[in-house]
């Protein structure tokens, strides 16, 4: 059925613009994506992963093309050939980083510092690439965060991490000397390590807040710019809730593990195998699944409920128990099918997460005009995001 553009025709121009809730729907199909995924997988394997950027472009086109806001899909415009260049760059960086760690801790530390130094720049480039290559109703989006902002946003997480890594590097030889001389290791280093660990934990919600504020404060569409009005206090609140949930889940997990370990003491291969397969592994997966579902659902709600632009408001009502049930079902089926259920799982999770969102628009979008900023052409940022596992999705 063809989309009939009726916006301008319905509302008389003199009336005050009304706020309209735009339905968000995801029409992707698990069975169709399964076929796409498996053919992509074969091509990736036989090309020794060189096909990955092309597969990624196809995946993004499929997922965005099936994301409909008010019936109109999100377009993906990324050029797979450019994404390929970015992919090669990221593979090189990854190999050098991985190999350096094997040969000497000093080289590994150096590589880590270099990676830390470029990471915020790569992250920002990835955001720029994804947004500039996403469109709604033909108009491209844009990410306007500055380079300095990216570094500032990551500061609370990087500084204690670097201190910890450096301290542990100096700690190893110092500890060896100490055991040889039967004396205590230098207390200054020990205090530094403990302090940086505590700082990492204490500053983690703050870095969360700054990163999300940077991300959600610079999305542009047709003259609209988003802001995130949620302060660090709410992120600390979320972190405490997550901690509480982890204690509760951890308690149940420990009980299950106790049972499992007890069963392992019985001298029967069948009982031990059953203990691992039916008690220990499910307990472990359930614990991780619970934590990730809780954090994911609450974070999506927190961040999107506080994001708005002058004429657009976002709402997210993702329920924790719905996401938990889905996650556990996905993990179970993925394990039982040795991974073949994976594409169905991804589609189902995306549907749940997207259909929990609503977009409320004020005014007539027909009258809006695209920004005239230049298109983002460098695709190496995008590859960095996927290669090192950071999810850059909207």
């Amino acid at each position, binding site marked *: 059925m063809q989309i009939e553009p*009726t916006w301008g025709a319905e509302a008389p121009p003199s009336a005050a613009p009304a706020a309209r809730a735009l339905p968000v729907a995801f029409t992707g199909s698990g069975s169709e994506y399964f076929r796409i995924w498996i053919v992509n997988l074969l091509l990736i394997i036989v090309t020794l992963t060189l096909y990955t950027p092309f597969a990624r472009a196809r995946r993004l086109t499929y997922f965005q093309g099936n994301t409909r806001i008010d019936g109109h899909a999100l377009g993906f415009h990324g050029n797979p050939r450019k994404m390929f260049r970015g992919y090669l760059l990221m593979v090189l960086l990854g190999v050098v980083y991985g190999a350096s760690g094997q040969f000497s801790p000093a080289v590994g530390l150096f590589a880590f510092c270099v990676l830390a130094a470029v990471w915020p720049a790569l992250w920002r480039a990835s955001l720029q690439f994804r947004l500039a290559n996403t469109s709604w109703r033909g108009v491209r989006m844009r990410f306007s965060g500055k380079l300095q902002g990216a570094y500032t946003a990551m500061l609370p997480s990087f500084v204690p991490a670097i201190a910890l890594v450096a301290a542990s590097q100096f700690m190893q030889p110092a500890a060896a000397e100490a055991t040889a001389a039967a004396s205590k290791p230098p207390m200054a280093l020990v205090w530094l390590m403990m302090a940086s660990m505590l700082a990492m934990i204490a500053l983690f919600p703050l870095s969360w807040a700054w990163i999300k504020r940077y991300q959600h404060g610079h999305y542009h569409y047709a003259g609209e710019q988003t802001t995130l009005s949620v302060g660090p206090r709410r992120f600390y609140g979320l972190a405490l809730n997550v901690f509480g949930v982890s204690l509760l889940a951890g308690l149940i997990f420990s009980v299950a593990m106790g049972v499992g370990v007890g069963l392992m003491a019985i001298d029967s291969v069948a009982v*031990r195998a059953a203990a691992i397969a039916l008690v220990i592994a499910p307990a472990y997966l359930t614990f991780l699944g619970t934590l990730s579902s809780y954090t994911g659902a609450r974070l999506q709600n927190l961040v999107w409920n506080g994001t708005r632009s002058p004429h657009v408001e976002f709402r997210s009502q993702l329920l924790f128990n719905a996401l938990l049930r889905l996650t556990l079902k996905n993990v179970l089926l993925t394990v039982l099918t040795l991974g073949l259920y994976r594409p169905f799982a991804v589609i189902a999770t995306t549907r749940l997460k997207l259909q929990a969102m609503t977009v409320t628009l004020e005014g007539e979008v027909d009258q809006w*005009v695209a920004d005239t900023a230049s298109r983002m052409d460098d695709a190496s940022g995008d590859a960095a995001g996927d290669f090192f596992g950071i999810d850059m999705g909207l």
Partner: protein
Amino acid sequence: MLRSTYFDGRSPKAHAVRLHLSGDWLEIVGDTETSDARQDADNAAPRLHLRIPVREVQWPERQRHGVRLAHLPGGAMLSHDDGPAWDAWAASVVPDTWVVRGMQSWRGALLAGVFSIATLVAAWAWGVPVATRALVAAVPAGLEAELGEQALRSFDAGGLLPSRLPATRQAAIRQALEDALQRASRPGSPPPAHTLHFRRAGRLPLGPNAFALPGGSLVVTDELVTLLEDRPDVITGVLAHEMGHVRHRHGLRMVVQASLVSALASVVLGDTTGWLATVPAVLGQQAYSRDFEREADDESIRVLRANQLSPAVMVLLFERLREARQKDADDDGGRPFALPIAIASHPSDEERIARFRHAR
């Protein structure tokens, strides 16, 4: 002719259009039969009319679900909701690539699945070992020695204690090893560079043990020497086994292979939570290390035979190790448990005993 929607890329406003394909050209004409176009006419806006070469359009791939988006040069775009209708209309100018045909048919997908599995199995069974050999050959000996020294330093820092064996005993064992290797070596190919270190396991769960580190560092624990103090021939057999690891550079191969196997596992489970990928990687690794142990056992057999010793003497090692484990377990009040074979990095004791016993 197809009725569709056009976006000019400068505004989110949707335009109803008619699309015509003629030869190498795509014509986009504003549709005069919708109220929107009539409004344009009222405002005296020019009616939309574009001609674009077909090959300059980025045509969407055929799918069942999803909106069809065709990107036009200059940032404009066509958006069509009814996938099958679009595919039927565009089929004449946009033939399916074989990739798309594979993705849209279950037979194609099944074939792709079978090929993927076959390729993965081939890579694991053959590709990874071959690639490892090539990569290992490229690593200079100095770098490998550095790796081994790093490892020994971290063992020492981690609780491995200096040996309490008298210096004469250590010298005797060293000399016995050199003599045995000398007798077993072929003329013109001396045994690989190696250094024998003595250490005490102390409170570490190593117990009687010997291991080889990359670059030729051999480590043997006091506990093992004490266990076999009346049988220097068995000690030589154990050290010869470790020399097998050194000769074949197993330590370095393990490192390279581990990286390749986890890379393989993460390719398959690519866009996913990391914790699921480590399990197949670990399981896959274990099979390789069992092959290494078999190679090392063969080396031990070779050296023993060259020294006029029966390889069957090694059976004593397994018997005494089992007794020692039993004693440990009884002291702790529990029973030692054997994990299923896939997790064990050595072939089962029974298999190794059989090899030594039947070696001729």
